[in-house]
């Protein structure tokens, strides 16, 4: 689903943000990308979502070679990837319902179907009655749920989240992570960047650890239990 081969990203004049990154994420996987601030997590996500080109190396997303993609096809790739950010990125002047409906409107879907699907998504993220509210009237955790609902509303196959719990306290973070687990259980590939390891220890997840642009450790999901303690010591 996501495949990076020998990916380098050098920002001028000489910031080696990513060095020789090789990652392969299969359909339906749940993968954490973790590492300290400045390690290159956001840079990696920006490459996957076509906001930037690697300095060298190849990236393949949902079967598309991003090096060969034409500028006018970039929006089409983005429609296959749901993205969630630390700062939610909701439209302030639109209701929760309208925010979630946006990707469906762009896809030209009928109004009645939009209503059904948005209501279903609201229910999935536990905001059944919040549709008519504006984002500013919601708590941070609720706003992030809206952002997640918007990211998955068009059934994108891949869900990427860059520090999705960065603005939330521990309890809310856990709720959000549970939501990601639920979405993953329905078949969506989930790739989450975070420097907060508290919840990584929960569940049996694959972890990629990145530091100074290098993948320094790769913990396959099967062997989670054994090295759990090691990772906790690292941070």
């Amino acid at each position: 689903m996501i495949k990076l081969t020998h990916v380098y990203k050098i920002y001028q004049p000489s910031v080696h943000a990513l060095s020789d990154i090789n990652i392969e994420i299969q359909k339906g996987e749940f993968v954490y990308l973790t590492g300290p601030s400045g390690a290159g997590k956001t840079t990696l996500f920006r490459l996957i979502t076509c906001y930037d080109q690697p300095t060298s190396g190849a990236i393949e997303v949902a079967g598309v070679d991003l090096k060969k993609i034409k500028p006018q096809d970039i929006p089409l790739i983005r429609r296959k990837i749901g993205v969630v950010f630390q700062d939610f990125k909701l439209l302030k002047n639109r209701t929760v319902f309208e925010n979630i409906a946006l990707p469906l409107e762009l896809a030209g879907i009928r109004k009645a179907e939009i209503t059904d699907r948005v209501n279903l998504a609201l229910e999935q993220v536990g905001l059944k009655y919040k549709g008519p509210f504006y984002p500013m009237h919601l708590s941070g955790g609720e706003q992030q749920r809206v952002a997640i609902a918007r990211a998955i509303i068009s059934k994108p196959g891949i869900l990427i989240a860059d520090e999705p719990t960065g603005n939330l306290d521990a309890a809310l973070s856990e709720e959000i992570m549970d939501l990601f687990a639920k979405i993953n259980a329905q078949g969506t590939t989930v790739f989450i960047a975070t420097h907060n390891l508290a919840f990584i220890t929960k569940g049996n997840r694959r972890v990629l650890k990145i530091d100074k642009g290098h993948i320094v450790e790769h913990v396959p999901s099967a062997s989670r239990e054994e090295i759990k303690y090691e990772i906790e010591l690292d941070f």
Partner: protein
Amino acid sequence: MNLSTFAVLSLSLGLIYGTVLFSHNTSRLFSVWGEEIQITVYLTDNISESQIEQIKKKLESSEYIVRHDFIDKVQAAKLFEKSLKNYGPQFLSSLKSEVGSPFPASYQIQLKPEFNSPEKVSKIADEFSAMGGIEDVSYGQEWVGNYTNLMRIARVLGILFGIAIFVGCLFTVSNSIRASLASRREEVEILELIGATNNEIRAPFLIEGAFQGIISSVFAILILGGIYSYSFQFIDGVLGAQSADKVLTFFSPLVIFLMVLFGGIIGAAGSYICVSKINTGWAAAEGARSL
């Protein structure tokens, strides 16, 4: 749209449309006041029968001639005598015969009012000059020539002036959209994120620009309408017997429609100058820069 954008746009478009209205009506006023313009075609003494026939045929078939009068050599002498009667009557008495008259025969041509513009008069005069058997054509060349030159200069200046205002309008709209784009950068970023195409992102801004152009056009035309009806009454008084509604015209509905359309196109074009820079990562990059 803020007030200053609206004011600058309305004023600029008003100047362009006002110039069109003014020049159209002055040329119409001219054709009314210039009713006395006559073309006199002087014939050569040795003109042949067939040449006369040709001239007659042209005079009768021409769509722009109201009437024409033939004045033979004797009549010409008489006319001359009449105009000089008070100065020296005896001087001319000997010349009142077909052979003796030194004055050429001529046709006096009166043009229809709509052909009374200087440009058309001189064009018609040239047509006659080119025919055989014609000595000279006279129509007050000097002042018509001056007027024509003046109009030519005015037209060139008008076009330059129009282009300057046109460019000004583009930049006014473009600046206003730039501000609107900056204030909605986050919104654009979100649209980029969820996979909106460039055109889907640009469209609302193009519509906003077109809307500014259309509103400003309508306002400019309304103001011109006010100025027009005020001057109409004034000119009506000055014209006296001639009623102003035969002479002055405002824009026809078609022209008004075209002007509003023109405003919309300028607005959309000005907006496009600004939003053409939007690409699939523009807003996100701008956002990163401002952090």
